Every structure is written in C-alpha cells, then in structure tokens.
C-alpha cells in the first residue's frame, strides 16, 4: 500500500478525550454512498456496545444531477454511552462530501461544530450547482466552526494508484471508505467489523474488496498521523441489557410484525395496498415473504386496496391495508363498511406532512382526528400508535389481536420518522410470543350473524365455505342479532350505541398508562407516536436536575387507557407536544375536562429534546 504522507517528524502527540454522546451527519451526493458509510459506522458502534439511533435523509428527487442540491443524501447517527432515544437534536459533526451537501446541511450543524469537508469537490462547477456565489472554504463564512478540509478524492486515488486494477470511476467510488476510516480513528472505532463486512460482501469482486480495505486503512492512518486531527474521542460502552440485537427501521418492524401476527394467529396475511410514500416499503417487504403464504395485492387504487382487504377478511384472512394520510382519506367509506359489517381490518397509516399531497417525505402526526372521527356517521374504530421503530413490531401484533377479538377495524398510526429511523431491537424469542386466539363459527344451529359475545360484544366470524352458516352482510343498518336489513328507529339507535360500546369495551385490553417519574407533580408531558424519544429524553434530563416533571406516552388512542383521567388529574399542568395543531390535546380536553396545553410543531421535523425542555420550563 502506498502511503502518500510520511508521518511528520517529530511525531505529534494526540489527545484522547472521553465524550458521552456524539451526533454525526454524513452528507454527500446520492452517488457518494453516505447511507453505506453511515450504516457501517452505526453497525460498528453497535458492535462496540454504544446505544445507537439513526435517521436517514433521502434525496428529494429520484435521480437528481450529480452535485445538485436536490441530489443531496444524508444520514444522521447518534451514538452514546448512555441510553439514547433520538438520532440527536443537532449534529456535532458534519461530513460534507461536496458543496451541495454543505449548503443543505450546514444550517443544522451546532455552533462551533466540526466540519469534515472533501475539498477536492469544491470546484467552480460544483459551487455553481450548489448556488454558492463564493467558495465557503475561502470566504470566511465557516469561521464559527472547526473546519477540516481534506482532499479526500485525491488522497483516495493516490492510495490506490498502482495497487489495484480498477478504473478511475471505480476508484472514485471508494472515497467514502476513506472518509469512514478517518472517522473511525476520530472516534476510536475498530476497523475489523467493516473489514469483515467488506470481505464478505465483495468476495465476488476481490479487486474492489482490496481497494476498499486499503482505502479504509489509509483514511484511518491519515487521521492518526497527520496534523489535521489532534484529538480522538472515545465513547464508552453503554449499559445495555444482554441479549441478541438487530438494527431495525419502523417500516421493517411493521412488516415483520404483521407477518408474525398472522403466524401467531395461524391465518394467512392479505395485504392490499397502493404505492405511496412513505408506506411503499411495507408492500415491498411483504411481497418478499410469499413463502409465509403472504398475499400482497397491489390494487388499482387505495379504495380497491382496502376493499380487497375487507373481502379477504370476510373470507378469513388477516385483512391488512397500508397507506399514508391521503390514502386513508380515500379509504374511509370502505372502513365504514368494515365497521358496519363488523369485520376485522387493520389500516396502517404511515403519516406524513399534509394536508393534501403535503410533504411526502417529511414526518407529521396530524391524522389522529381522521382515524378517530374521519368517517360518516357514528363510526368508531380502534386506534393504536407505536412509539419507537422497534415498538412497530409489538403494536402490529397487538392491532391484529384487537381486530380479531373485537371484530372491528383498527388504525395503526406510524409516521415517516418512525418508518425510516432505526434503533437496536432486542429480538424476541418466538416461542415466548403469545398466540392470537381466533374462533370461527361452525355450528349452524341457531346461528345468528349479529349475535354478540357477552364480554366483547363482537359478532361471530363465519367464513364463506362453512356449511349451514350462509348469511348476508352489508353496509345498510342491521337488525341486532339477526343481521337482517332493518330501518327500525329503535334498532338503529341500539346498533349505533352497541358499536360504540364495543369499541369502549376494548379498554379491557388496554394496559394502564405508566408514568415515567413521580405519579404526581407540577408538569406531565403527554405524547403519542414518535415523540416518545424526544419527550422521554427531555424529561429524563430534567428529572436528573431534580425538576418536578413526569411523562407518559399513549400507545392506545381509542379507547384511552382506563386510568388516563386519574393520571392527568395528578399534575398541575399537562403539556402535549404533537406534530399537529393539538389533536390529542383536544381529545383529552374534551374527554377529561383538563386544561391541557398543546405544544405544536408542524415543520416536517421531529421535536428536538431542547425544544421540549424549553417549553416545560415555562411551566415550572
């Protein structure tokens, strides 16, 4: 391997500093491999025992021109010796592989943050493409940061000159491993996990494997020996419960969760869906699991997708449909049909910025009202919402269990942040997962399609093909018990109330709400969905300072946990941070007559920990 740079004489003394938490954002052109780089760094960090949380930032355009602003792709990673729950409020370090990446991401970098820049890419053309009037490396605009400009492209190609049989383009693609090597030294990471990965993945391409290996080591040595970096940082192992872990994103966990749910119920999964950002990946993932018998159906539109799922449910499959906000709007009439026919149905909504087409790639949680009340008539459905990417697995299983038990549609509210964010997941032992009980009607004697279970008020699930149980269901109001079409006024009121009562009774399956911190105090921060990470981290921080603040997180939104009212009453002020204009807040104000405070952020971005702290302090 040709080392371009000789270690300077005399050797420079390098410091090693210990830090608790670091947030790095890798940013470059879509072709620069920042997702690969970020993922490798993340995996290595997990292997050495840090807690991790990541969030990718995909390019806005499908195929933007190289070096352009819409082509910037980013990957943010937070790793720590503590238990962390968010990918970090602001990056401490920004690795910018080209001017456009710097332009797009610099505003997020913390004051005095570290910049590692590939100076080779700061050419006249690239600066123009990034709409820079002058070169930021020269015009003093980066004065407030710790800037390290490295000619990464040159160092990369020099490292490989003469050592491998690769074209200039192929050599250029290795430069992200150089950057990775530099960062590995900077944060005291071992090279072995990535080296092993390179040799495993690229075994069919030994020249490339060798090149990446060489470049990784060169980057590492470069950082170690040159004057560019005088300090390396160590981050101790976090205290993590022992076990087997895997990295998982919300969408992955959602898909795996539903496959598992179907297996636990012993039924086939039917997924009716239509491509929509950010839910399409669930369709892609489920379509790969045909060997579980999973039937994925890409329908002609959103309505066909949910109707097919309802049909499949009628025939005894797990009827599942998935979409984002605009899709739910289209599906509501059909969901009403499922409520009226009292069939199990799970509707996954990976929420995104709205209204209308809104911000397809940005996160939001403004579809709560839609889930609870968005249908014509009195049309109650159950609503659940996972709190973290890994929780998506649990709530997927839970939503199927509830749908089957109460013969009712269940909304599963995820969002873009959960869908794409990743965190470690302690893989469960399959044998320990409880089966989902399902019983089907079989006895024709005195069979009544709308006879009700005493406890749950659910009607029997009678599958077509079962002799003697032939019956008709539909959207017109039904007579209780017999299920015949019926317009009688008393019957209608009775049925409306029964359907509501049935949903209310699901509270029996909602675990009591747990409070994080003291059960009584000055402030309770109440959240739902993906705000869990920011809220819990903020509250934990304040609790360490002795502040009288607690938090609670709702994973069941209809019905609410039975003890929610009591929990709310134990605090002087209830603050509800939400990525909407106060939907949960409105619901609890209405139901519990509590003067809760809505803390809204509708920017297409998750809450920062500091934002929540600042808000809470107003009430302390």
């Amino acid at each position, binding site marked *: 391997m040709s080392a371009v740079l000789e270690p300077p004489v005399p050797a420079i003394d390098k410091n090693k500093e210990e830090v608790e938490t670091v947030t790095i954002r890798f940013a470059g052109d879509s072709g620069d491999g920042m997702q690969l780089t970020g993922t490798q760094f993340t995996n290595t960090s997990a292997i050495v025992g840090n807690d991790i949380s990541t969030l990718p930032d995909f390019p806005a355009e499908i195929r933007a021109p190289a070096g352009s602003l819409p082509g910037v792709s980013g990957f943010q990673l937070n790793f720590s010796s503590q238990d962390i729950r968010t990918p970090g409020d602001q990056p401490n370090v920004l690795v910018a592989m080209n001017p456009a990446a710097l332009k797009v991401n610099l505003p997020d970098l913390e004051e005095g943050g570290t910049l590692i820049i590939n100076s080779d890419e700061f050419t006249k053309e690239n600066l123009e493409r990034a709409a820079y009037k002058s070169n930021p490396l020269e015009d003093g605009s980066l004065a407030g940061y710790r800037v390290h400009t490295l000619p990464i492209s040159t160092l990369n190609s020099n490292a490989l000159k003469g050592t491998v049989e690769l074209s200039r383009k192929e050599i250029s693609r290795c430069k992200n491993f150089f950057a990775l090597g530099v960062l590995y030294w900077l944060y005291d990471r071992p090279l072995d996990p990535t080296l092993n990965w390179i040799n495993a993945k690229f075994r069919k391409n030994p020249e490339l494997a060798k090149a990446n290996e060489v470049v990784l080591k060169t980057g590492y040595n470069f950082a170690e020996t040159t004057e560019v970096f005088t300090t390396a940082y160590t981050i101790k192992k976090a205290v993590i419960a022992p076990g*087997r872990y895997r990295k998982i994103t919300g969408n992955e966990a959602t898909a795996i969760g539903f496959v598992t749910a179907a297996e636990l119920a012993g039924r086939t999964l039917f997924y009716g869906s239509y491509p929509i950002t950010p839910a399409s990946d669930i369709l892609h993932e489920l379509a790969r699991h045909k060997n579980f018998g999973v039937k994925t159906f890409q329908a002609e539109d959103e309505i066909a997708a949910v109707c*097919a*799922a309802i*049909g499949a449910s009628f025939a005894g499959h797990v009827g599942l449909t998935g979409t984002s906000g605009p899709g739910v709007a289209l599906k509501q009439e059909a969901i009403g049909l499922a409520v009226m026919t009292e069939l199990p149905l799970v509707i996954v909504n990976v929420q995104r910025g709205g209204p209308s087409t809104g911000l397809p790639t940005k996160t939001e949680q403004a579809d709560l009202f839609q889930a609870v009340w968005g249908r014509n008539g009195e049309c109650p459905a159950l609503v659940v919402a996972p709190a973290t990417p890994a929780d998506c697995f649990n709530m997927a299983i839970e939503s199927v269990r509830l749908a089957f038990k109460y013969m009712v549609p269940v909304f599963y509210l995820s969002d873009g942040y959960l869908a794409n964010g990743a965190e470690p997941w302690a893989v469960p032992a399959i044998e320990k997962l409880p089966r989902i009980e399902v019983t089907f009607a079989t006895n024709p004697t005195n069979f009544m399609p709308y006879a009700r279970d005493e406890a749950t008020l659910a009607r029997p699930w009678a599958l077509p093909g079962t002799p003697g149980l032939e019956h008709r269901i539909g959207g017109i109001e039904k007579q209780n018990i017999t299920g015949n079409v019926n317009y009688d006024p008393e019957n209608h009121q009775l049925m409306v109330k029964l359907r509501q009562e049935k949903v209310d009774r699901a509270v029996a399956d909602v675990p009591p709400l747990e409070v994080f911190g003291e059960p009584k105090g000055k402030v309770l921060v109440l959240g739902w969905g993906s705000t869990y990470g920011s809220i819990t981290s903020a509250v934990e921080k304040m609790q360490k300072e002795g502040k009288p603040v607690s938090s609670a997180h709702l994973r069941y939104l209809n019905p609410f946990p039975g003890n929610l009212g009591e929990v709310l009453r134990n605090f002087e002020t209830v603050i509800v941070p939400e990525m909407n204009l106060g939907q949960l807040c409105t619901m609890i104000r209405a139901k519990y007559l509590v003067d809760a405070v809505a803390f809204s952020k509708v920017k297409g971005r998750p809450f920062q920990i500091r934002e929540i702290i600042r808000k809470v302090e107003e009430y302390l």
Partner: protein
Amino acid sequence: MNTQGNGTNGNGHVDQSVSAESEGGASLFHIAPPPGELTKKDFVSNQEVRWCPGCGDYAILNNVQKVMPDLGIPREKMVFVSGIGCSSRFPYYMNTYGFHGIHGRAPAIATGIKAANPDLSVWVITGDGDALSIGGNHFVHVLRRNLDINYILFNNRIYGLTKGQYSPTSVFGQRTKSTPMGVIDYPLNPLSLAIASEATFVARSIDIDVKHLGAMVEAAAKHKGVSFLEVYQNCNIFNDGAFDYFAERSVRPDKVLYLEHGKPMLFGKDRNKGIRMKGALPEVVTIGENDVTEADILVHDIYLEDPSVAFMLARMEQPEFPQPVGIFRSINRTSYDQLLVEQIDSAIAKSGPGSLDKLINTGDMWTVE
C-alpha cells in the same frame, strides 16, 4: 319483521316471460336435469323481495336461482357480492353467503374474497351506474386480472334506486330527473369496455328471455377465468320499455341476433338475414338477394384469441344492425387467483416454508454480553 316469502311472485310482465319461448332452437338452451340434491328452493332466502312489481330483476333472480343447483357447487361455497343499486339488492335474496358492499367497489371486495379462498364460487352483481360510473376503475381491473369470478351487469340504462338520474349507458338526449333537457353525454357500451379490458368471457342476454339467460348464466359459471355477462334489464318505473325496440317479443326475431359458436350469424323471422363482411366492416344481407347464400354469412367463433370480431359484434346497434346476444368471446387464460397460489407455492418450494426465526434474525445483528 320479515315475512317468510318466496321471491318469485311477480305479475304480468314476469309471468309472460316465464312462459315465453326464445327463438333460435332448443339446442342452445337445453339445461341438464339437476344432478345433486340441491333445488332452486334451497337458494331462495327468507327475505321478502323489495323490487318494484314488474321489475326485470325478478326474472334474473328467478333464473339464477334455477341455474344454481345445476352447477354442482355446494351452497356454502357461493358468495354473491354487490355494490349499491337496485341490482345490488340481489345477494339478500340468495340463500348463500353474500356481501352487500359500497357503491362501485364490489369487484374489489370480490377480488379479496376470491384471492383469500379460490375454492369459493364468487359472483359480482352490479348495475350500469355501479359498474361503469363510480365503479369504472374497478371494472377494468377485475376483468383484466382475470379473477375466476362471475360478473353480471344488470343494464337498465338508468339509476333506479336513487329514483331516475341518467347513467353511463343512458341514451343520448334522454330526459331524466337530472337531465330534464336531455342527456348530453355519449353513452358507454359495456361490452366494448369489457372486451377492451381483456375479459376472457364476454356475453349478453335479455331479462325476459328466460331460457337464453339461464344458459348464459350457466356458461358464465362454467368458464374458468372472469366471466362478464351484460343483461338488458327493464326498469319499468324509471325507464320502461327501454329495450322494447328490439327485445319485445313480436320484433325480437328481426331485431336480435342470437350468436352461437360454430353457426352462421343468421337472424330474422325466416332466418334469412345474416352478417357478412364487406371489406373490414360488417353488413347485413338477405339470403337470396343479390346472390347471397348462407356460405357468405360470417360463422361465429367464440374461441378466437383476437378480440376484434367480438368487439365488432359488441358495437352492433339498431337500427343498422341487429342487437347481438349470446357468448361473444370465450378464451382461456390462467386466472389471477390461480397465479397467486402458484407464486406462493413456488416461493415455498424455493425458500422453504417461512420461518419466523429466520425472518426476525436477519439484517445487522450483534450480541450484548
């Protein structure tokens, strides 16, 4: 409460049709005697039929109930799915499994049912508004996917249930509740659209031609793949006599062409009129005039892969042409539900049955001691 009732007590119009005989020969309409224990009565539900007296739907219901026992399918395996409309009340009157869904979406619901359980015999009952207006999208896709279901469209050229608005098949200039100055839309031809949507079985019949309708329903049921059947159905309240100009008994022989596979396309009281190709277009000729013999008449072939002839027949309208009824097209293509199962089977053959253990323990993994 509901009274015990038999849905076949119609008056006048319906009685006449029951005894009417269709032209075209007995061979077409011979229905085999029932093989099993089921009879028509088994298929009649206990719901009192609420269609208007004299509605064409009675005839269709009657016919379908008569045909069901001959299909050899157990009653519990039958599912009737409908949307919204008068026709869509159909499932309530069949003593089978039924799903009265939302407007226009029956094909989608039926797709889910059939995909979940391909052993079921799934029927979609719909109307011209339900299928072609709000349901236009699903119409195309359920046909092109070739789900092995039977799709019966009751075309009465009007919106009956909502009391008389025009539909996509209403005649240009028709005066209706929502178009008092006349319809200004050009109507849609359901068979054209069905053929264009790649339907593998396309047929048409008339509500009052009991024998023919029965034969068509049976043929549709027996066809493997999607079976599309349009039935001209008279709405005697909001669009009475809409089809009389060709369907009325006295004119029918001269105005309706009964298509039969392998037979020349002949019609007329004396069966001396026929369809002949003149270049690329069809024309009506009379045998004996201008040296036209029966050999010149186009012979019907329902098994042609190329849909052009079927499409051409579907476009034939009065007054230039007779109204064709019968099976227009019947080709074989593997159905969606079968392909779905095959893919799953081949996935299992390739990767083994799914293992949750493997599913969960994939991706970037590590152990914490």
